[in-house]
C-alpha cells in the first residue's frame, strides 16, 4: 500500500484540479495521480458557461439558457463564485462580481466569440468596437492584418493593425511560449514598452495583443503598459500550447501543493471504491474520482473497430462514428466511482461552448457523492477521515 489520503483524483486537467481544490477547502486530503500534464495549457484560460444556443447562434444570457437545469441560477452562481474566489487567491484577477452575461472575445482568425468568465488579461468586449491589433514577428497564429479584415467583414467595425519589429536575440522559430518567457524578463518588458510607445498613436484606443505578455509576470507587465500608454490592454488567446492556460496551471498546482496535495506521476490501471492501482504495481488508498478526461484528455481510448473504452473502469461508453468525437463520454457522474469533467453527460461541449460549466457541475456532483458519505456539509480539520469519505 502507498499513500493514504481521503481522495484520489485521477487526472490533472481542470476538473481534477477543481475537485482537489474543493476537498482541501473542506479540510480533506488529496492525492492527484496523472501520467502526463493536464489539458489546461491547451486553452487560453477563459471559463465557458454556455456560448451557443442549440441552433448555433451565440448566446448573450447563459443563465436564461440554463434555466432550472442542473440546479438553476442559484447553484450556478455558487459554482461560479467558487471559481472567481479561487482565481483571486491564485492572483488571476477577475472582478469580484461574477458577470451576468457573456462577453465577446476575439479568436486568432478574427472572429468574435462569446465566453463567460475570463481572466483580467483577456481582451474582452461587451460589443464590437475600435481597437489596435499588435502583431509580433514570426507569430503565425496572430496575423493581425488578416484578423483585422475578418473582424471588419463580420462586425462592420474597422480596426487597425500594427507590427512590432524583432527584438535583440529573436529567432524565427519563436512561438508564443518563447515570447512569453522573454517578456517575463526585464529586458523584454523594456523593449516592448519602448516599441509599442513608438508605433502607436496618442489616442486612447485599446490594444489587443496576442497572449504572450509574460507567463508569471503578466499582471505586472499589463499594468505597466496600461499606465504608460493610458489605455486598456488585453490579450487574445492563441492555439496550444497556450500561455493563458499555462499561467493558471502553474499557479493552481503550486497553490494545491502548498495545501498538502500530493502529485503522483503514474498510470492508473484500475480503481475500487477505496483504492487505485498503478501500472508500476503501487496501490493508493482513498476514494478515487476519475478526472481522466475524454478521448482528448486520454481517459477514453478509441479502438480501431470504433468502440470507446474507459481502460480504468473497463467499460465501453460509446462508439465511432455513431457518436461525435467531440461529445462521447460517460453518461453520468455517479458511476462505480465518480467521473468528472466536460465530457460527462453526453453534452456537446465543443459545439455548445459549455465545457467549463459541465466541469463545474460534475465536480459539484462528485463532491456531493463523496461528502454524502460523511453525513455533513461542515467539515473541521481532523474530523474528516478517509473511511467516512467513501462513496455509498
Amino acid at each position, binding site marked *: 500500500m502507498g499513500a493514504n489520503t481521503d481522495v484520489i483524483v485521477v487526472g490533472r486537467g481542470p476538473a481534477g484540479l477543481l475537485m482537489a481544490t474543493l476537498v482541501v477547502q473542506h479540510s480533506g486530503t488529496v492525492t492527484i495521480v496523472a501520467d502526463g500534464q493536464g489539458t489546461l495549457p491547451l486553452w487560453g484560460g477563459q471559463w465557458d458557461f454556455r456560448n451557443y444556443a442549440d441552433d448555433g*447562434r451565440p448566446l448573450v444570457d447563459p443563465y436564461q439558457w440554463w434555466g432550472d437545469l442542473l440546479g438553476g441560477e442559484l447553484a450556478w452562481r455558487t459554482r461560479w463564485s467558487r471559481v472567481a474566489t479561487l482565481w483571486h487567491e491564485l492572483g488571476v484577477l477577475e472582478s469580484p462580481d461574477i458577470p451576468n452575461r457573456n462577453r465577446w472575445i476575439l479568436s486568432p482568425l478574427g*472572429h468574435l*466569440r462569446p465566453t463567460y468568465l475570463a481572466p483580467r488579461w483577456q481582451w474582452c468586449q461587451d460589443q464590437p468596437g475600435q481597437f489596435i491589433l499588435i502583431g509580433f514577428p514570426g507569430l503565425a497564429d496572430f496575423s493581425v492584418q*488578416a484578423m483585422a479584415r475578418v473582424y471588419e467583414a463580420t462586425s462592420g467595425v474597422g480596426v487597425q493593425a500594427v507590427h512590432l519589429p524583432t527584438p535583440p536575440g529573436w529567432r524565427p522559430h519563436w512561438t508564443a511560449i518563447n515570447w512569453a518567457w522573454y517578456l517575463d524578463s526585464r529586458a523584454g518588458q523594456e523593449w516592448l514598452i519602448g516599441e509599442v510607445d513608438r508605433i502607436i498613436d496618442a489616442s486612447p484606443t485599446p490594444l489587443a495583443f496576442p497572449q504572450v505578455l509574460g507567463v508569471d509576470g503578466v499582471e505586472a507587465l499589463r499594468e505597466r503598459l496600461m499606465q504608460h500608454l493610458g489605455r486598456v490592454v488585453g490579450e487574445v488567446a492563441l492555439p496550444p500550447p497556450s500561455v493563458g492556460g499555462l499561467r493558471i496551471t502553474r499557479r493552481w498546482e503550486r497553490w494545491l501543493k502548498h495545501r498538502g496535495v500530493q502529485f503522483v506521476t503514474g498510470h492508473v490501471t484500475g480503481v475500487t471504491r477505496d483504492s487505485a492501482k498503478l501500472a508500476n504495481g503501487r496501490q493508493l488508498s482513498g476514494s478515487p474520482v476519475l478526472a481522466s478526461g475524454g478521448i482528448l484528455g486520454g481517459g477514453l*481510448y478509441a479502438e*480501431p473497430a470504433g468502440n470507446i473504452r474507459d481502460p480504468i473502469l473497463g467499460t465501453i461508453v460509446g462508439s*465511432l462514428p455513431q457518436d461525435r*468525437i467531440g461529445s462521447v463520454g460517460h453518461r453520468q457522474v455517479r458511476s462505480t466511482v465518480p467521473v468528472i469533467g466536460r465530457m460527462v453527460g453526453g453534452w456537446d461541449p465543443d*459545439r455548445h461552448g459549455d465545457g467549463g460549466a459541465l466541469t463545474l457541475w460534475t465536480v459539484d456532483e462528485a463532491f456531493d457523492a463523496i461528502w454524502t458519505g460523511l453525513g455533513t456539509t461542515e467539515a473541521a480539520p481532523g474530523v474528516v477521515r478517509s473511511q467516512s469519505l467513501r462513496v455509498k
Partner: protein
Amino acid sequence: MVVVIGGGASGLGVAWDLLLRGIPTTVVEQGDVGGGTSGRFHGLLHSGARYVVVDPVSARHCIAENAILRVIAAAAIKAVPSYFVSVDDDGDRYLSPWLDGMNAAGIGVREVPLGQVISAIPDLNRQARRAFSVPDAVLEGFTLLRLLRDNITQRGGTVLTHSQVTQVHQVGGVVSGVTVSSRGAERLIVCDAVVNAAGPGAGQIVPMFGDQIEMQLSAGMMLVFANRRVGHIVNRLGPPGDGDILVPHGRTAILGTTDIPHGSPQPPVLQRQEAVYLLEQGERLFPGIASWRALRAFSGVRPLFSTDSNEGASVRRRIVTRDFTVLDHGMRGGVKGAFTIIGGKWTTYRLMAERTVDAVCRHLDSWVPSRTAVTPLTEASSQGDPVGAIVCECEGVTLDTLHALNGDMDTWRTRAWFAMGPCQGAICLHRGAAIRQSIVGVQAAMQEFLALRRERWRGVEPVAWGDNAREWALTEALRHQTLAEEGMNGR
C-alpha cells in the same frame, strides 16, 4: 497540336513524350495535377516482383521502367532496401513459382539471412521464415508529377487545370479540334489528335470519340502511419493480396491495399470497417501494427480494363492484368485521331506514354522515335534552405516556402507537404488561411480553409483510433473553441 485529357502520370507522360518528339501539346486536367489516381497510391516503384507469377508481362515492363526512372527521375526516386518476406504456409507454397517467375522476368533477387532482416526491422513478424531482397524503390508521386509539369511548360507545352474537354470536333471523321471549358469560359483548341489519359474517368470520355469501352474500376484503400516505423519496403510473399505491402514514404509509412470493385471514377467514401480489415491483414507482416499511430486513410481508383469482357467478371480482380492498352478509336470505328490509354501502373507511366505517342505518330504520319527513356527530367530550380517563420511545424514548412509556391492551400499540400503531418492541419490550417487572405480575400480564403479541413477529416475519420482519435478530438475542440472558425453562423 495534340490535346491530352488528364493531368495524371500517364497524361503528363504523354505530353512530355509528344514535346520531346517535337509535337506541340496541351494538357486538359479537370482538377489539379495529380488530383486523381496518380496522387493516391502507395508510393512504390515496382520492380515487378509482385507480378511475376500472375502477370509476367507487367513484371517485365516494371523492371525495365524501374531502371529507366531511377536515371531520368532520380529526384523522385528514393532507393530503400526492399524485401519479400514469407510469414506463413501461403508464402512457402508461393516461393517456388515466384522464384521461377523472377528468373524468367530477369528481376534480381537475393535471399537475405532472416536475422539480418529482423534486426533491421524490429517490428517484423518474428515467425517470418525467409526473406528476399528485390529492387523495389520508393516513388514520390507528387515530386515526379511536378518534374513532368515543370519540364512540359519549359518546353512550351501547356497544362490547363480545372478545365474539361466538353466536345470533340471532327472533319470527315478525323479529329479537328476540341472545346475546352475552363472555369465557366469555353474555348476551341484546334488539334490533330486527342489522347484520353483520364485514368478511371477514361470510360466517360470515350463516347465523345464515337466509341464505347467497359472499364473495370477497383478501389484500393491505403493507411498512412504517422511515423516511419519501418525504413524498408516490405512485401508479404504470396499471391498479391490485401494489406501485404508497407512502403516508407517521407516521415510516414503506408500500408496498402485493398481491392474492391467500384462503380465510379471518384474515390469511394472511406469506411472504418475497411480500414480495420486492412489493419488485420497488415498484422500478418507486422503483428503490432494496430498499436502504431495511424494518421489517415486514402483511397485510389485503379483504372483497370479487360480487353476480354467475358473473362473480366469471372476472374478475381487481382488477376486482371496490370498491363495497359492503347486504343486507337479510328481503328475501332470511331473518330480517327482519337486515342485512349488505359490500365497500367504508375511505374510504367513512361512506357504507356511512349506506346501511346507511337500510335499518335502513326496517325500523324510523321515517325520520330521516343526520347523519354534517355532524357532526364531536370529540376527547374533548386530550393535553398527554408528560412522564415514556420507555418506547418509537423513538416517544417516555412512562410517563405509557401509564398514561393504561389498557389492555393492544396498546392501547398502536394508540393510542400503542408498540413500532411501528424496534426493533419490542427495547428497550421488557420495560419494558412491568414496567408491566403491577403491574396484571394476573406471569403475565398475561408472557403479554401474549411474545404481543406473537411478533406483532412475524410481521411482521418476512418482511422480515428488511439492517438489519432486524440489528435482529432483536439482539432475539434480547437476549431470550435479557440478558433471559432465557422464564425457566428454555420455551426
